[in-house]
């Protein structure tokens, strides 16, 4: 049997080589099907990886607590509109929940920032020092401000890459420079490393961080001292996130004296929630891909069946001769199945190459990130083989059931 299979594969290759154009056209459906799957999965996975990087850029195991609520209908001030969260909430959270490794807070406003003769309108964040640790901000030069800066409401600032580019000439040293925010002079003590886009699509590097106390007392002019724009918390383990969220909810509801029938006056979000939205998007994409791939592979399979039926008719006499010298039905069946699978496998291989090339081209031309998926390649490959087997079965069976005398007499 091994000798038979080997020689049959060789024969199949020779027949395909002889009918190159016909074989090529037949394979086209499979090539397009497999190529589309691989290219699209690569693009989809690239997009997903980019999103995951964005989600990760939030920091590790971060919980964001925003004032106000988005879950209840009726006229509301919008998320973050209410001033229900305070510094004291943050301190209390850390005390109550052992799962929280750290808590921080931030308040933001868009302000005019001036450096010499250049100015820029951008977000200014008053934050606790712990906020920088929770969000995993790193520095290209300098470093974070300290608890002492916080207590003394020092006029020190950290600057993001985008803001830096807009306020300073190329090559100009930002470290130690003085900028003015709402006419208050600030010393730059740290330049932040770039983080890129957030999961919501905003530029995270367009930012200035100053100590929360300084912001409250000297820049924003808050009505309620200690009220924050958002609270941040982190856990050591990502598995602790759901439980930590429940701790936070219970603590805040108790502190805010919310009755059992009252809705939360805050919203808690984790990276997991943000990731879920993205997952929904990529699932839609996957379903679409599956539809495209199924249709192309179906069309490709019909093409293979068609060409094999032609081949069986053309080679009726040959089949008769093979039967006369002792080929059993299984031999004839195997021969045509191997031809079908060779066609679809070649189509699959070319499709893989086309798919990878297509993905690379997308990266070069459109600038989209792509990731070649080995799983997708293997699946597409196995699928094309299955298509060959399935659609080859009918013509192969037709050949195997020929009557040897009639086949020999066929002209």
């Amino acid at each position, binding site marked *: 049997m091994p000798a*038979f299979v080997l020689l049959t594969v060789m024969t199949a290759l020779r027949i395909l080589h002889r009918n190159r154009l016909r074989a090529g056209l037949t394979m086209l459906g499979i090539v397009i099907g497999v190529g589309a799957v691989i290219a699209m999965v690569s693009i989809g996975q690239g997009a997903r990886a980019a999103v995951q990087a964005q989600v990760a850029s939030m920091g590790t195991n971060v919980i964001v607590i925003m004032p106000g609520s988005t879950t209840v209908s009726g006229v509301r001030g919008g998320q973050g509109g209410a001033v229900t969260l305070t510094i004291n909430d943050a301190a209390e959270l850390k005390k109550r929940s052992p799962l929280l490794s750290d808590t921080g807070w931030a308040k933001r406003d868009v302000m005019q920032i001036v450096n010499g003769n250049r100015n820029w309108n951008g977000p200014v964040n008053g934050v606790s020092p712990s906020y920088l640790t929770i969000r995993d901000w790193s520095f290209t030069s300098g470093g974070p401000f300290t608890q002492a800066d916080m207590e003394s409401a020092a006029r020190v600032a950290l600057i993001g890459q985008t803001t830096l580019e807009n306020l300073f000439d190329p090559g100009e040293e930002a470290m130690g420079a003085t900028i003015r925010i709402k006419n208050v002079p600030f010393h730059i003590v740290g330049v932040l490393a770039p983080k890129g886009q957030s999961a919501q699509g905003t530029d995270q590097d367009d930012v200035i961080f100053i100590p929360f106390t300084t912001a409250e007392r000297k820049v924003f002019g808050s009505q309620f001292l200690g009220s924050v724009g958002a609270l941040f918390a982190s856990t050591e383990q990502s598995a602790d996130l759901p439980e930590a969220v429940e701790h936070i909810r219970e603590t805040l509801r108790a502190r805010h004296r919310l009755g059992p029938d009252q809705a939360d006056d805050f919203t808690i979000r984790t990276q997991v929630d943000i990731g879920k939205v993205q997952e929904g998007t990529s699932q839609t994409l996957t379903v679409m891909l599956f539809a495209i791939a199924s249709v192309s592979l179906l069309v490709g399979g019909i093409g293979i069946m068609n060409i094999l039926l032609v081949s069986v008719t053309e080679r009726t006499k040959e089949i*008769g001769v093979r039967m006369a*010298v*002792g080929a059993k039905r299984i031999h004839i069946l195997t021969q045509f199945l191997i031809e079908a699978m060779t066609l679809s496998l070649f189509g699959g291989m070319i499709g893989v190459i086309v798919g990878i090339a297509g993905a690379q081209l997308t990266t070069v031309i459109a600038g989209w990130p792509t990731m070649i998926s080995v799983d997708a390649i293997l699946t597409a490959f196995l699928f094309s083989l299955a298509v060959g087997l399935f659609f080859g079965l009918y013509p192969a069976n037709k050949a195997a059931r020929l009557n040897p005398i009639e086949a020999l007499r066929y002209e």
Partner: protein
Amino acid sequence: MAPLILCEDLWKIYRIGDVEVPALRGINLTIDRGEFVAVMGTSGSGKSTLMNLLGCLDQPSRGRYHLDGLDVSTAKPDLLADLRNRQIGFVFQNFNLIPRTSALENAQLPLFYRGVSIKEQRRQAAAALQRVGLAGREQHYPAQLSGGQQQRVAIARALVGAPSILFADEPTGNLDTASSREIMDILEHLNREDGITIILVTHEPDIAGYASRELVMKDGQIVQDVRRAPHLSAVT
């Protein structure tokens, strides 16, 4: 020992629409090992149908056919294929070589289906080609060979599996006189030197002259069965 071929009241009836057309009407025939039989008759006399039955390509509607002691009248298709592969060799009028496939590979074909190793297939096929005088032509395609050479490839293919019977259906029908004589000389040699039973269908008396026994068919029956000394110089 049982005769190689034993037919008892063999019938083949074709059904065309509602009409039954008997192609063979009660054939009784015994052929022993080593015989060289010529089957003659006009077209439509049933000689091709008889060949197909004896060659295990078809099965009788009625009656018994014993091949080498084995009743094959009701055998399954796979057993028939196996018998064709091991016991029988065919030589056809129009050669029936597989196109664009080398002489060697054509000659290998029966061994290919027997599951012999590729090396052994090649060795035996090359030996068979040598026996029919085609050494050195192993890699030629059928289209590159003359009619006589193509028929010799077909004979090599028929005898590569060391069959006990060789069926030749008008083997010289498409050949000129010189080639015909070459082919008949090879068949005659295979019969006399190697003891292969040969059953030859022809309508040419001088080709039939090579045989030691002559059957004449008419209307699906054997009407004449004579044994005689072959006159070897028939085609001079």
